[in-house]
């Protein structure tokens, strides 16, 4: 399953373009490894990684504190950062391809607004649920679960709304998305008005995104949704490439455009929905990563989708390293870091493209 993701189909390996693409791929893998090593070895606790690894490998046994920091804090956090970053970046690339619009991101199909409404409902109204239910779920799972269900529900509703007579109108999808998002934001507003101070602070933190709540359990809950979507996404690449020429052209080239739309929306709902529900709303990864990659290697989705997964993972893990360091021993919500880094990069891309007579 990994082979098609790592090699570009269609190009003979000797051509300069293929070589460049291969270099880019390995460069991204190296970047991700670098970010991962940084993430594991830095943190407020000042753990000496070589010493800890030495202890571990020599069988000397780890101090409880070191073991907890490494296996219960840093590793799940790294894994969740990679998963969330990859999910957001690939979802962004899929949305931009599907809508043929450089500004599209999972928010367009209601994922962000739906997840936000779900999270806010759980935070504000969670106390009204039967105690037995919250005890079974655990308070830490109520918010992600509600966020995922609402994100998924919003996207499915939207897809249903945009479908008429076996055809899905991308324009309707976009416009209905705006209306649905406005509705979700209004409902969120009502709940916010009902919230007390502490719930408000919880909401604010959720809305800025964070990997602070990373745990193996959350990873295990989200991965079954993210992983299939990421593995499956490259199979949509050919269709998305054809779609760039227009729906009619893609259909003439033998692509089932309806199927393409359906699977793209499903993949985004699963990957971005699960990512946002465990990590909160993290902006800009979904927009900046595909754009950076298009600049580097062109718009071919066969290269773009797997590369986006790698770069998204590397950037989010890197941003998390920064989020943990700047105000240690406290930490910054990661959404702030991605926006502070992402917004200027995005502006730069925009200016450059305008120079080329783009957008």
């Amino acid at each position, binding site marked *: 399953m990994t082979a098609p993701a790592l090699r570009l189909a269609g190009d003979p390996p000797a051509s300069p373009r293929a070589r460049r693409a291969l270099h880019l791929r390995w460069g991204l893998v190296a970047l991700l490894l670098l970010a991962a090593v940084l993430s594991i070895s830095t943190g407020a606790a000042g753990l000496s990684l070589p010493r800890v690894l030495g202890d571990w490998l020599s069988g000397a046994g780890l101090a409880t504190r070191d073991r*907890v920091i490494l296996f*219960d804090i840093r590793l799940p956090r790294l894994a969740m950062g990679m998963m969330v970053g990859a999910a957001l970046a690939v979802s962004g690339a899929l949305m931009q391809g599907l809508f043929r619009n450089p500004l599209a991101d999972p928010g367009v199909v209601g994922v962000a607004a739906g997840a936000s409404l779900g999270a806010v409902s759980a935070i504000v109204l969670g106390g009204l649920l039967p105690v037995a239910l919250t005890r079974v779920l*655990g308070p*830490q799972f109520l918010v992600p679960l509600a966020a995922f269900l609402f994100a998924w529900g919003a996207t499915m509703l939207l897809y249903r709304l945009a479908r008429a007579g076996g055809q899905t109108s991308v324009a309707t999808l976009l416009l209905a998305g705006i209306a649905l998002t406005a509705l979700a934001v209004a409902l969120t507003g009502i709940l916010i008005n009902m919230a*007390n101070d502490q719930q408000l602070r919880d909401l604010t933190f959720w809305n800025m995104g964070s990997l602070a709540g990373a745990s193996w359990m959350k990873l295990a809950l989200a991965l079954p949704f993210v992983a299939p979507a990421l593995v499956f996404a490259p199979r949509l690449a050919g269709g998305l490439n054809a779609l760039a020429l227009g729906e009619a052209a893609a259909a003439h080239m033998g692509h089932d455009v309806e199927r393409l739309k359906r699977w793209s929306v499903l993949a985004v709902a699963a990957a971005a929905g699960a990512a946002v529900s465990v990590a909160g709303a993290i902006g800009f990864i979904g927009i900046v990563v595909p754009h950076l990659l298009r600049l580097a290697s062109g718009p071919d989705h066969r290269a773009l989708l797997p590369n986006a997964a790698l770069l998204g993972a590397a950037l989010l893990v890197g941003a998390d390293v920064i989020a943990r360091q700047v105000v240690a021993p406290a930490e910054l919500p990661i959404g702030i870091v991605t926006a502070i880094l992402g917004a200027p990069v995005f502006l730069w891309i925009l200016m450059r493209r305008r120079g080329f007579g783009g957008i």
Partner: protein
Amino acid sequence: MKMGAFLAAGLLALAAPALADPPQRIVSVGGSVTEIVAALGAADLLVGRDSTSTWPPEVAALPDVGYFRALSPEGVLGLAPDMVLAEADAGPVEAVEVLKAAGIPYVALPGEPSPEGIAAKITAVGEAIGRQAEAATLVETFAAEIAAVRADAAQVPAADRKRVLFVLANQAGRLLVGGEGSSAAAIIALAGGVNAGTGFHGYKQATDEAILTSAPDVILMMDREGDLAISDAEVLGHPALGTTPAAQAGAILRMDGLLLLGFGPRTAQAARQLHDALYGPSEG
């Protein structure tokens, strides 16, 4: 005699595990928790605090582990504490679980915002850090002060009770005021006043009409500086607030926010201050 000594020794031995090694490096999470630790004379044992811990002033110099609902477990562990004292609702849950797994005593303290809740919290902190005697003394003083202010408050005839409106913030003319069940309502009741903000829970934005009908005799605010400060001119110039009995009589009170709303060991003092400001110092 001998028997008694044995018994005492046995009891001591039983109690020993708890008393054996009182913590030397404490991270305190929650404003009132930190105040209690300091009031028990253990401020020098603190190695970290959360962002709501701002009293006594010297704790501001300690490393800040963030908002008490958004803790970073590694940040806390990085301070190498041998005990974490935290409000019961500190979080996120994952962070608390990781801290508990790290083998450091993690003490969740009861957090009811009432005088009884504060006394229970003081006792719990005292037990956790091995200062039971100091805690008992503090609880005694605190209970006596509360009883005194309650007695004075009870003497105010129902007809003379002042209606107090707590104004938390003024956001360009929209007022955020204290409603039922808010900490402001609790301290106003303790001081013998009547909370004028009724019909809603917590701190909410009130419409001008609601403020007019609340007809407060006194406007209570936090003593803040900079952008958050609300000046008398702002109060008098506000279309609704300016026409209330309180504004017309110039009855505007300001008190330190954490003292007033913190529900820690200084709450008796806060209630006394508010009571005296409302009704004048009690004679005797």
